[in-house]
């Protein structure tokens, strides 16, 4: 679990936003009862989020541009998850939302290919993403949910192309602060569990992880064998887009590290080209926080090379992020090479 995945409600911007585009979030009420009375919902609520895909985002638009970055979807949910909880489910504003799991399966890879890499294209020719989102309250206490479960169906340019889920938990503010403080103290109180690189990690080539800008590379040169890669997540010299809050590694940073390590494992293990590869499946479970000033290890174990239903080379990868041997996140991905 990571608060870096949360919407930062402490210093809220005037409006929520992602990337360089304005988007619309439409609430589709299944029943008007609570809508008319402005009473919090205790059942499922449906939303549609639509807008252009980012065109000048420092991370999502960095790279060979063969595919739209699937992290646009994670950011979408991250962006609206907490808002939906507070606005539609009556969760008090002082309870931050923490995402603890996220899954996404690309169901139509064709739509994720970038048909319009031209940033100067006209507004109505730019790719648009639409996400149909169902939010289900979880663990209702006195009518207020302690969490929300999301089901997401993603379409790009009106082609349904992805399906995912996400889990968000709302924490009591005092409890949350105490919990963070305790974990911080606990992780530093066990020097015998220390796990750090012998020498400062050297970033891998951006091309190997599907990026162009060196600042967007967040993993170091791996050690180990092709069937078990171990790398360090870079905290220094990376793009400001990864900045976390409260001394913690941001969720975007962790997800990007998992993405880059997956591509690295598939490339080093089986020769899949990062420029033409994409994560067709992504399933991550956050177990705890990651401190920004402590080394963070990412281990990847690629499975056997296979093929997806369309015959493309596909490599499943199992990953774990650990800090001082304590689990931060576990993930399973599938890297697909698409020409």
């Amino acid at each position, binding site marked *: 679990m990571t608060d870096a995945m949360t919407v930062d*409600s402490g210093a*809220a*911007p*005037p*409006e*929520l*936003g*992602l*990337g*360089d*585009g*304005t*988007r*619309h*979030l*439409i*609430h*589709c*009420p*299944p*029943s*008007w*009862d609570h*809508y*008319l*009375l*402005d009473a919090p919902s205790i059942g499922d609520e449906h939303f*549609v*989020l*639509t*807008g*252009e895909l980012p065109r000048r985002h420092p991370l999502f638009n960095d790279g060979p541009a063969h595919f739209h970055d699937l992290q646009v979807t994670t950011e979408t949910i991250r*962006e*609206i998850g907490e*808002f939906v909880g*507070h*606005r539609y489910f009556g969760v008090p*504003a002082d309870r931050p939302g923490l995402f603890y799991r996220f899954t996404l399966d690309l169901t139509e890879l064709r739509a994720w290919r970038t048909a319009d890499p031209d940033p100067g294209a*006209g*507004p*109505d020719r730019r790719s*648009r993403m639409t996400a149909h989102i169902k939010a289900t309250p979880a663990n209702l206490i006195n009518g207020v949910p302690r969490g929300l479960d999301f089901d997401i169906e993603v379409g790009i340019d009106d082609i349904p192309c992805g399906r995912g889920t996400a889990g968000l938990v709302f924490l009591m503010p005092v409890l949350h602060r105490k919990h963070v403080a305790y974990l911080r103290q606990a992780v530093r109180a066990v020097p015998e569990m220390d796990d750090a690189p012998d020498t400062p990690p050297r970033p891998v080539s951006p091309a190997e992880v599907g990026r162009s800008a060196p600042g967007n590379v967040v993993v170091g040169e791996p050690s180990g064998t092709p069937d078990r890669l171990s790398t360090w997540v870079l905290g220094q010299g990376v793009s400001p887009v990864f900045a976390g809050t409260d001394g913690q590694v941001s969720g975007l940073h962790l997800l990007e590290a998992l993405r880059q390590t997956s591509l690295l494992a598939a490339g080093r293990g089986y020769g899949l080209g990062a420029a033409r590869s994409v994560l067709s499946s992504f399933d991550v479970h956050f177990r705890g926080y990651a401190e920004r000033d402590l080394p963070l290890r990412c281990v990847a174990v690629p499975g056997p090379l296979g093929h997806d239903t369309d015959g493309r080379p596909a490599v499943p990868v199992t990953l774990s992020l650990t800090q001082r041997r304590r689990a931060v996140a576990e993930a399973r991905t599938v890297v697909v090479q698409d020409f």
Partner: protein
Amino acid sequence: MRFRILGPMELHAGAGTDPALSYTPSAAKLRVVLATLLVRANEVVSVESLIDELWQDGPPRTAMTTLQVYVSQLRKLLDSAGPGLGRQTLLTRNPGYLLRVAPDECDATVFDRLQEQGRKALEADDHATAADVLREALGLWRGPLLSDTPHGPVLDSASVRLAEARTAALDHRVRADLQLGRHRGLIAELRSLTAEQPLREEFHAHLMVALYRTGRQAEALRAFGRVRRTLIDELGIEPGPVLQRLQKRILDGDPALLRPRAQAAAAAAAAVATVGAPAAPAAVVAAAVTAAPGTAPAADALPAADRSFTGRTSELERMEALLRNAPAGTCVAVTGKPGTGKTALAVEAAHRCADAFPDGRFFLDLRPAAGRPLTAAEAMERLLRRAGGDPAPAGDAPTDPARLQDALRALFAGRRVLLVLDNAVSESQVRPLLPVTEGSTAVITSRRLPAGLGGIRPVVLDTLTAEDAHTLLTAAGAGGDTGTGTSRDGTAADPGAVDRIAELCGRLPLALRAATAQLAARPHWTAAALAGRLQDERGRLDALRAGDLDVRARLRAAYDDASGAERRAFRLLAVLPPWPFGPGTAAGVLGLGPEEAGALVESLVDARLLDADRGRYRFHELLRLLAAERLAAEESPSEVRAATERMCETYADAEHAGPAAAEWFAQERPALVRAVRAAYDAGLWELTVRLADTLTGHLEIHAAWEDWETTHTLALEAAGRCGDLAARARMLRSLGDLAWQHRRLVLAGELWDRARRAAEEGDDAEEYGRSLVGLAELRLDSGAVTEAAALLGPALAAVAAPAHARGRYEARRALALLALESGGPDGPGAAEAHFTACLDLATVLRDRRLEAYARRSLRTLRDPSGALEIRPGLWRLRAPA
């Protein structure tokens, strides 16, 4: 004494003593001696044998003496149960000892006797006795032989022998039960037995037969696959010839296998006497029927069970229970729409209940040929002939109904018979046929429930479940898998295509059978190919015709049986979209008052031409296709257009408002969208616009973009065709709203601009103002507040008249957003004034949704949390500055 060794050892005194008082030796060695003597009861067991049994690893030096001590202790034990019993029972006989046990004193001896008795009964085809006796024998077993006693060579040998005898008894009992038609109840036990004893082929064979007889052919074949794999894995051998033959018979759908051997033989002798079949040898049938009850062989005059019969588990259970416990004068009526398998279910149930009607099962088709059904007299006459009676004794007129009924009742008096009266058309037709005496009953199949008959127990059949439909198709090989792992066409199974076929057939058993027949007749077709052919609605009924399996003809017969008014209603309702509809909609389409239309629609439900569910109605998919065919064939184009117009009018007038609106729209949405298309296709331009207007608000709220675009594009075209400038402006503005919601900004601008021009041309102030509001919102989105303000001034002026409250609401809303967007300390205050005006206008409009939005906006005006609700339910998420 009572000795029990079929399980842990137990010794009790004989009858008349306290059964709780046990004399079982507690010492293991004593139990070994006693057990050895018991398994060789009334035989001399040598001292050496007893010593070997007691000490398998080598006897001690004092073995002989110790054995004598054990024998002495056993005699004392027996004496405690009865004075002198020890000496009388446990005798010293050279070269050892003999335990004298009467035949009924030891459970193993009783078991042997009962088992032998059961085997002989089975050989004599006395299956009921065999089953009862063997069940009693098996009931003696409480666990493995002498499970609490150490076994030496003698006890081991006895254990093996008795275990084998028990298995044989089980085998015989299962055979007897199968002969008695108890296959359904055996399946669970046989599954357990085959799991316990995976190498006993006979149990696997019984399981296959039981499954086959319950209509689970696929599972029967899977059972064969399992035992085959086990034998190959364990022993490297193929199943024996019996199992292999059985598999082949199941694959071939051998109807003889469906019935117990005795029944099959009797049926063959009775020369299945279904009406329409060649005349039965009357003498044989007569002998079967006229002989004294219980002594005659049963006259099983039923058609063979349908080998493709699948599912219907709960209905069969219900029918079986009803038939077995039918009080005198009652009968079961199976009803359902055409093609649901009423006859097959009735026949299957009759086969399953065969043992409850030992004096005969008779099948009579009351409508043997297309067209005229049998009269009651004809039916009675035919039934009498089939049952071996004389329909015209002593020169009476053969069709005198009273005489025939008397003859029939006399024939069935005192007997236990089951009649299957198929295709009944009226109560008067079947009433004289129904048995009235205890022990006999009837199953009537009919589309309409013969509610006028007394003592009717209805069983209503619907279509199959998705799972059963899939099973039926795959059992027949539609998915490419024959159930044995082999493929009908050499390709891998295609469960997706099978499910598509099932759905396209509406899971109607008759249609599914026609589909499987098509595949069987054309081995080069794959399931996917057939699914593709069925996809086209216009050719689906043609594709569901294979030989004499003609789905259209069967459905058409039901249609032809309906009255003229019913047939007309059936046809006209085909103009409705293929989703459930309410009685009001039906009344609208039929052009009738609610009561008259309600009665007509209910009569269609009674005729099984329409389905009813919780106050709404719908066609079965295939009946809808038939209705559409009949509509095109029998109604003039003008009548079809009039019906379409009435349908569209009904939908246009049906809009719900308020809290129930979301539910109403969710329920009716596909039908409403289809209605817009129908109106457009029929050239009903005004109606197309009206329907689209009805949908506008709902489509916006639900972000139903695809339907929104479809309906309003049609309505825009319709508005142009009928020269309605206001409607044209309205549709353009609404499509602009759609593009805006969708964030197609350029398109939104174009549409709103066109709407503005159309409104100007048509002098429509409301739409002119709203179009300007839209254009202003576009400017606001890009931060061009000055341009937005320049548009909103004229917009507000255009809708200043009291009649344009909605337009004014929108202008005020946009002005409030402009005030917020402009920033500055006065922004929130100005926005508050505009939202307050919105609240007042929403109250005037009596629009609770707009009112709720205004209240919410006022409440959150100074909320620092961020996102801005720019329209009701529409939030703008913008990148941080």
